[in-house]
């Protein structure tokens, strides 16, 4: 067994724990490389099917390639797809910096979906290596009644024993690939032949390392036109993965505030 097998085995274990311990769960599908890897692993965990809904919280501002990908693979992978539209910008906290405010629409969209379906667990594809506040996450991460994350009061979690009893009305976030890195995701995508959105590969000297809303996500300079080249590029880079995501960089704590209020 190599490292990818270990990562996969741990993620399968987490999926099976979430499915066994929680009553009503959904997988958040951002259409990006991380959540595609998650869907792939869920199908391994459950022998070919994803036995819970897959939810796309749609800001309406994704790239056309992302919508095409969603429409094709939700059918091909036989997913129980739920699409949730986010509320308009004018309903969002105006004190947030502009890009963070735009991103916060997704948090509100999530809250609406939670209320509508009564999920007690949402499976999200965040990773510790993406961003310092995500490094502090638990695998089973409780959220308050308002969906907020209180980093000062995280429960202990050890030996793969998870806290899986959210207070009534609140929910848990479950993070099956928290321990993966960006490189792991690409190496696994290559090994397993998982389809990706072509925006991740360079065209005219630019590619996207992380995909979000088209108006607040920018491409990085790159010549990497294949997954192999992406992997080689990442092995040498010292630029952060989310450097193209505007809401991370507006103020020192913009992203932390987003996360505390329930962003992924």
């Amino acid at each position, binding site marked *: 067994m190599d490292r990818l097998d270990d990562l996969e085995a741990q993620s399968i274990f987490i999926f*099976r724990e979430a499915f066994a311990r929680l009553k009503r769960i959904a997988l958040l599908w951002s259409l990006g490389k991380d959540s595609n890897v998650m869907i792939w692993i869920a199908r391994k965990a459950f022998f070919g099917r994803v036995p819970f809904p897959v939810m796309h919280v749609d800001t309406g501002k994704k790239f056309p390639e992302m919508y095409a990908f969603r429409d094709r693979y939700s059918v091909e992978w036989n997913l129980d797809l739920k699409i949730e539209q986010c509320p308009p910008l004018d309903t969002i906290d105006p004190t947030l910096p502009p890009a963070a405010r735009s991103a916060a629409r997704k948090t509100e969209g999530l809250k609406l979906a939670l209320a509508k379906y009564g999920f007690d667990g949402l499976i999200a594809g965040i990773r510790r*290596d993406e961003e*310092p*506040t995500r490094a502090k996450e638990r695998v089973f991460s409780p959220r308050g009644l308002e969906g907020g994350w209180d980093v000062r009061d995280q429960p*202990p979690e050890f*030996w793969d*024993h998870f806290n899986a009893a959210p207070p009534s009305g609140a929910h848990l976030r479950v993070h099956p690939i928290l321990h993966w890195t960006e490189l792991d995701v690409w190496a696994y995508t290559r090994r397993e032949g998982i389809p990706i959105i072509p925006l991740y590969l360079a065209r005219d000297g630019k590619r996207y390392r992380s995909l979000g809303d088209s108006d607040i996500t920018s491409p990085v300079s790159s010549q990497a036109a294949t997954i*192999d080249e992406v992997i080689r590029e990442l092995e040498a880079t010292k630029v952060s993965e989310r450097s193209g995501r505007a809401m991370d960089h507006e103020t020192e704590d913009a992203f932390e505030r987003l996360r505390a209020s329930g962003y992924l």
Partner: protein
Amino acid sequence: MNMLVTEKFATTPSADGLSGNRSLVRIVLAGHVDHGKSTLIGRLLHETKSLPDGKLDSIKAVSERRGVPFEWSFLLDALQTERDQGITLDTSQIRFRTKSRDVVLIDAPGHAEFLRNMITGAAQADAAVLVIDATEGVREQTRRHCYLLHLLGISQVAVVINKMDRIGFDESRFQELEAEMARHLASLGLPATAIIPISARNGDGVERRTPAIAWYTGPTVLEVMDRFSPAKRLTDLPLGIPVQAVYKFDDRRIVAGRVETGRLAVGDEIAIMPRGTTARVQSIEAWPEPDNARSPQSARAGQSIGLTLDRQIFVERGDVISAPATPAKAVRRLRARVFWLHDQPLAVGAAVGVRVGMAERRGTIALIENAVDPGELSPIEAKIIARNHVGEIEIALAQPIAADIYAVNPRTGRLVLELGGRIAGGGLILAVDGNASVENRQDSGAGRAAVSVQAARLNTELADLPPVERLKRFRAAIAGPLVFTTSFGLEDQVIVHMLAELGIDLDIVTLDTGRLFPETYALWAETERRYGRRIRAIYPHHGKLEALVEKYGINGFYDSREARSACCHVRKVEPLDRALTGAAGWIVGVRADQSINRQGTALVSVDERNLLKLSPLLDWTRDAAQSFAADNQIPLNALHAQGFASIGCAPCTRAIAPGEPERAGRWWWEEDGQKECGLHIASDGRVERAAKA
């Protein structure tokens, strides 16, 4: 943290790309608050050139804007409150690469308030670096973290004495702290890998031995990190698969779980514990569906798998799949050493949730002993276990659960406690009521702690002594009967000779399996003649032996691993239990270089029966034993001269070819490297128990 890759290694990706087979080691940084953990991490990232471009400058600019002097720790504190208060609240994880491997550094908070976060981080680690401020010395969180590392089962610990610049790099002060920590860790059975003087702020001792610490000759922090062993797969332990779920998505009924220990193959017989029902593995299921030729035929520790069985027996989440020969115990009452994290103290009579593997049961605390604050220098024993304290408990369970003691299986041998649906504590199982060798010993849990401390002390004391001195000191240190078990091998004969010369008072015992070589019986008689004393023989239990032969046939051990294990159990393991009844210490002829399983054996270890076990020839080579025997004209088994290196039962031992491993001639038809019958505990204190017939 963001994508961190060291430039000098980035240019030479391995042939199959990254993430392939560089080893990954997870290291937790522990220690008292403000002793400099985050500073050390910042420095390590800098020294390994792991910081993203511009990161250092941007943090320096932010510090300037906020009117505070730059600190390396600012690189780590991710949250606004952490930056404001200068305290790490929750564990973060940072990656970097050294020469030979990838490292995940786990930065654990040092504030007592956040012990649950320290535990969350440390429980994921393969090794620990404990940071101590040279100006403050050992503080309560230092001691508490040491104790928790021990309870979390982390056995590799290095200590750094930080802020050496603040005491003028004073060598004698360093030596005082070094001695204090070496003693403290040894008392917990956690010998320090290294104790290193450093200044994280200035870089001394982190990557380089600088002139300021010219008097120090040991490894640097990065060198120690390169030496820690990554997590080992527990493939050589008895099979254990806690069942996560049983799926019936289509016409298949799939039992899903992760193989925690051991291995299994299609066709194997398995036992479902705690019920004890049995079935055979019909298939190992996988997706995407492989073609028939490639469907998985076996699985091993670490894999998350799904099985179908040949019979429709009842299986549910929480059960443990074992090999019938080595089942997890069905337990109604257990004893554990635990840490407690809940605000409400743990008291006798409390109703708690108990989790072992995937099983959850309601339990009642029946007994509390040795409840102490591990942070105190001279702890006072309490009747309850307060928050962030530790103690030993006995729990009575409402329903039986499948479990083992930690010394036998570290995965099925640990438990988690819940209060009000929230994880509130955890610890190691010391004794269970299903275990005959434990149930007669009411105080075995408490006793075990004392025995572990004594083992650690003896290990240090005996390490540099010759075997004869080791035997003398061991005899003097053990209050109670000593047993030496011999199978008349080369090492055994050397030890018999030494014991006779010393005139040490002890019982010499051999296990007569009934299938020994004629040459072995001849040597037995000759040894008694030469040394003028009787060697006590222990025989298999006749009823069990008859049942064994009835079930498997007279030479059934050649047919399956299961039959072989059962035979070893009846003829050797069970008789050994009787040979050791009432003993306080046990002497054996194990050498570390006999086999991989025996490497890493401690000179003095604690056997699962709570016995101190000495291997006086542990660090001898075969050549050393041979020349000692020749010099002293010690009688040896005639088979050695015919190419037999390790000699057991006649049907199961053959000569080895030059260059073959020493134990290659034992059970030679079995393919894997586990050439043990179950008499000797493996390197990390675990034992492969052979079958019960």
